[in-house]
């Protein structure tokens, strides 16, 4: 885990002090809301529908128990006792009072955290694989690179006023769990011709109102060249990205309108010049960070009791089946804690639950936790022998839901319940879906299924890459939900296709039931997931299920 050095500490403290001054000026009226706005946004403070919202960065999704306990403390002291984990590995507090925010930021700084650059047209919190350093398929831990990028992008003087916000994600594994190609810059660690590790760099991915899969701009970038290369991309974007229309200002539009080859030529021309400015190659900088991410000291524990417990306890078995995956160390496992209880708000955790997760992580997961973009919490390093104890502790805290990767493990943006931009509700829709399919007791039968819900066209709920995507719109004052099918956020990233006309809130869940029913009928066998069946059969059988009247008309 990266721990702040004196420099980081002093930097963050000075930012808090600066913001404290700005809040005082706002409260005594010497700053207008207009003037205060860009300043608060630099510190992650939004004005939402009902209140301010503070978005706190969890860099590359990694936490320890101390940090998690502090998040709980903040939720209890200055908010309503809970926090909301987002699809960008952030936590949001939905009810802070302006006067308290500097104290919240100081409390974050106490544990080496901050809210810097979680909003505004700058480089946002760098996200990464939530299974980093634990996954069996990994080439290398991506987090040292992510930390280097955090440092480089923080308060970068040139890139605080970009045409639009800018998101970077990195994965160190061939199985992409960080949806890197939906980011402005997506980075995959790859091996070069001689086995050395470097980066494949993509640009111009994004969801939102015009979704694009990122395009590879450099197939292999040596580690030494990382920062100068990124800086070259950023400079091209800052100078050439559109500023006339905020809906066309992301780099994906620049790449789309200018053409990848042209952008690549511009970047490659700048790159050697910018590289000259760096006296230290990036691999040297990385070498200084890497020791912070040294793997924990894994211990062998006998598995006999674990196997007996597994045989005896069906709940444990079900939990292990859905929420536990293989670890690179054979006697360890990766546990996903679902923040999607049936009928609950996806991604919400109470202060009490945060403390329980912190305690379990400290005792059983080498003091590490991760936040996933799927709004769950990960215990990355759990000895298999400890799984029964971990499961029992989670269950006692209401955190034992065994649904990871299943139909009720829904991503939903805040939508109309909180977000000022929303055109429809998304959280209540997620709650209805999970409640209904839980009643039907079909969840395990259906198997792997990713439903993702956005409350407006901005697509914070990633609906474009949901196996089933749901987009809430406003049609003449009435909520209308559009369904997209066949989206995929993994390394085979695909954008879902719109199935047809939208549904009212009341029609939506029955329509989904018909859709799922059709899948269960047409699939080859239990092994064939919804996405696989969709790829094999195309949209027709699913469309017919969604729109039975049309099917009749056509017949």
């Amino acid at each position, binding site marked *: 885990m990266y721990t702040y050095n004196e*420099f980081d500490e*002093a*930097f963050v403290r*000075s930012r808090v002090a*600066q913001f404290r001054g700005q809040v005082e000026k706002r409260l005594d009226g010497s700053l207008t809301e207009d*003037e205060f706005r*860009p*300043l608060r946004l*630099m510190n992650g403070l939004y004005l939402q529908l009902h209140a301010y919202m503070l978005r706190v960065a969890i860099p590359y999704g990694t936490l320890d128990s101390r940090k998690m306990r502090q998040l709980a403390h903040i939720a209890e002291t200055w908010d309503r006792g809970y926090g909301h984990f987002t699809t960008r590995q952030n936590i949001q507090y939905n009810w802070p009072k302006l006067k308290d925010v500097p104290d919240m930021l100081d409390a974050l700084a106490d544990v080496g955290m901050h809210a810097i650059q979680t909003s505004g*047209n700058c480089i946002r919190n760098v996200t990464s694989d939530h299974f980093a350093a634990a996954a069996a398929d990994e080439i290398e831990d991506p987090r040292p690179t992510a930390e*280097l990028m955090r*440092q*480089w992008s*923080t*308060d*970068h*003087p*040139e*890139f*605080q*006023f*970009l045409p639009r916000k800018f998101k970077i994600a990195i994965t160190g594994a061939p199985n992409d769990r960080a949806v890197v190609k939906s980011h402005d810059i997506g980075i995959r660690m790859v091996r070069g011709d001689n086995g050395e590790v470097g980066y494949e760099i993509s640009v111009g991915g994004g969801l939102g109102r015009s979704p694009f899969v990122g395009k590879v701009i450099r197939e292999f970038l040596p580690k030494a060249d990382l*920062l100068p290369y990124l800086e070259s991309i950023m*400079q091209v974007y*800052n*100078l050439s990205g559109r*500023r006339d229309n905020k809906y066309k200002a992301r780099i994906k539009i620049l790449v789309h309108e200018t053409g990848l080859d042209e952008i690549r030529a511009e970047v490659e021309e700048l790159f050697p*010049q*910018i590289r000259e*400015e*760096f*006296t*230290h190659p990036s691999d040297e*900088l990385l070498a200084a960070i890497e020791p912070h991410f040294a793997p924990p000291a894994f211990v062998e524990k006998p598995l006999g009791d674990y196997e007996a417990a597994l045989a005896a306890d069906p709940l444990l078995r079900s939990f292990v089946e859905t929420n536990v995956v293989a670890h690179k160390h054979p006697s360890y496992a990766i546990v996903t804690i679902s923040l999607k209880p049936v009928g609950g708000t996806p991604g919400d955790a109470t202060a009490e639950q945060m403390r329980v997760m912190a305690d379990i992580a400290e005792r059983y997961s080498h003091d590490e936790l991760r936040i996933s973009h799927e709004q769950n919490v990960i215990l990355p390093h759990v000895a298999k022998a400890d799984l029964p104890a971990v499961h029992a502790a989670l269950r006692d805290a209401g955190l034992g839901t065994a649904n990871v990767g299943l139909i009720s493990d829904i991503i939903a943006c805040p939508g109309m319940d909180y977000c000022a931009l929303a055109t429809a509700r998304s959280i209540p829709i997620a709650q209805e879906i999970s409640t209904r399919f839980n009643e039907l007791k079909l969840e395990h039968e259906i198997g792997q299924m990713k439903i993702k819900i956005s409350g407006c066209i901005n697509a914070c709920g990633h609906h474009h890459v949901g196996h089933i995507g749901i987009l809430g719109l406003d049609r003449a004052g009435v909520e209308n939900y559009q369904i997209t099918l066949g989206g995929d956020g993994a390394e085979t990233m695909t954008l879902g296709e719109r199935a047809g006309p939208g549904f009212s809130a009341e029609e939506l869940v029955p329509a989904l039931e018909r859709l799922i029913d059709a899948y269960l009928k047409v699939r080859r066998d239990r092994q064939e997931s919804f996405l696989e069946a969709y790829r094999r059969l195309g949209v027709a059988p699913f469309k017919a299920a969604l729109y039975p009247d049309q099917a009749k008309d056509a017949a």
Partner: protein
Amino acid sequence: MSAGTDLGIVVRDGRFAPAADEAFVAIESAEEAAGIGNRAIEVANAIAAEALGPHLASIPAIAIRFPAFNDGRGFSLARQLRRLGYKGTLRARGHVLADQYPMALRCGFDEVEITEAQAARQPENQWVDAYQRIRHNYQDRLKYGAA
């Protein structure tokens, strides 16, 4: 000063000074720069740095316009001009906030010119404060290994 502007306060080393009657000639294209000779110029933030390249040695000062504080192109343009070897004075001219002052300096600007109206809203002490914040930054550490 070019016609039609109401600027007038220059910030140097954190301190306010009235803009002297400096003659910045507004240049809209590279061709115009060719004939400029030994005079200070003012450019839009959309001009290509390389276009000015051949003439940089003779131009004593360049003012880059900031049409709005959230248009950050001027920061990149300043860095490009410095990278091309420009040694003269670089001025950020227009809507630049006090909180952006350290960024401007770190991108290679020497000074900022704002309107009297903005100077009234963001008085000198805010710029003095901002000036103190120039040193403690990540990029110098990563680029030059500075402490």
